């Protein structure tokens, strides 16, 4: 009787274990149809810093420039490890940020947190692709070009 119960427990344990293993998520690369096709540059990068307060203005929508460390370049050329990326209206989830002025932007990222890793499709320089308010708190500190984020997905490190 005892041996039968132990056998049952073992079966349940291995069953749950194998189910857990089969259901475990694969590392999220952040790749999807848009991020791999939009823009001329595609990277996976770690968000190093969101400088200052994100302006959440009911009247105006701004792009905020954020600092990233590039972990992998998938398309195009990126000269430096640390890059500056303009994210449009970052107080909003990416799938709700697009409007007529910003054009086609999006992604599955819901909020920006320093330390998170993003897979991004981008254009450069930002001024050639977006004509609007750009809050760049790195202005005067660096001569590096600012990228314009078209699509931003969450990704695993």
């Amino acid at each position, binding site marked *: 009787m005892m041996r039968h119960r132990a056998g049952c427990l073992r079966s349940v344990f291995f069953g749950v274990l194998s189910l857990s293993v089969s259901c475990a998520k694969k590392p999220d690369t952040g790749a999807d149809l848009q991020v791999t096709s939009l823009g001329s540059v595609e990277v996976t990068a770690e968000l190093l810093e969101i400088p200052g307060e*994100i302006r959440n203005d009911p009247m105006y929508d701004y792009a905020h420039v954020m600092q990233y460390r590039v972990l992998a370049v998938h398309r195009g050329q990126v000269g430096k490890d640390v890059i500056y990326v303009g994210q449009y209206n970052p107080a*909003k989830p990416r799938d709700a940020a697009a409007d007529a002025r910003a054009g086609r932007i999006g992604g599955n990222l819901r909020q920006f947190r320093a330390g998170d890793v993003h897979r991004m499709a981008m254009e450069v320089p930002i001024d050639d692709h977006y004509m609007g308010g750009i*809050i760049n708190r790195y202005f005067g500190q660096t001569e590096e070009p*600012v990228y314009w984020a078209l699509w931003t997905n969450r990704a695993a490190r």
Partner: protein
Amino acid sequence: MAARCSPGICLSVIFAAMIALVAPSQLVVEWRRGDSPQIAELFRRRPTGADLRNLESSLENACRIGQLVRPWMQWARFVIFEDAGDNAVLGRGGWFFYRPAVEYLVEPWSPEGEQAQGNVFDAIVSFRDDLAKRGIRLLVMPAPNKASVYSEMLARRAGGEGGPVNTATRDVLARLRRAGIEILDLFEVYERAKRTAGSPAYYLAQDSHWSPEGMELAAEAAAKRLLELGWVEKGSTKYQTRPAPVQRYGDVLRMIRAPQVERLFEPQRMNCTQVVDVETGRLYADDANSPVLVLGDSFLRIFERDAPGSGGFVAHLARHLGFSVSSVVSDGGASTLVRQQLARRPALVKGKRAVVWEFVERDLRFGTEGWQQVPLPPAD
């Protein structure tokens, strides 16, 4: 005997339950979406002022219950108390005002006292000097707040003889003139125009911006000043206008973020006109090689890049000048951001003889990123 509770206790319990419901429901929403709880961010980040405000704003935006309930609460507040919310003020006759513009008008402030991000005088004078080194002249054109021009629509007693333009604005303009800055005073332009019997409204009732008629008045005055000063000569391109009426809700009404409130009003009709090149028959388009560059904010965007297009200040300025101009528009960013944009693209000032710099009056106090000095890169 059934237990009876007093209405006060019942209300308190209901109120506490409503508050207590928000956080767990949001956790469930985030869990179902596969996200980690946003509130956990409170413990992940260094609690700086900026981080806490970013988190607060992010929680507010993401709250599902808030998104569902807020428009209805706003509607109830509007219908019962005529309260238009945090960003708008309901004036008389269905006129709406942008709250920061009203605060700018009624609150005392001093440009000397608010210099956290630069100083308006230093920023304008240094920009003028930078341009002068390249042989370019600067015309500064503050666009009056609607509340400054139509204070009588804000409150009956506010509209007096000569208008209640903020004394700080007058002081700033006077001091800039003393520093040799060329100013186009649109306050005077509108004051004079309003005295004409049967004059149209120069600002939109539901919007924070000028009306097509107000915009055309400003464009005509700017062109006249540039020509009178002899900074440019009238060009030979012939433009004509064609009617392009537009109907939509104004930005201040939309800022209430309650479609239920919008539905209480008719969309405003605007008698816009588009500018057409007579020779080519095409709609007005900027010319990067023009001798005139126009910098500014949403006052330049409205009717020009928004519907109907090619019918805003820039196009009408070109019509009065007789040649195309070039423009850089930074929505809500005419104090500092637009000059940063120019500094990133110095080619835009190449070959220019005059720059017209428009910014909305309230930016003197509330300009996004303040009034930083932004040096132009040295000329080639």
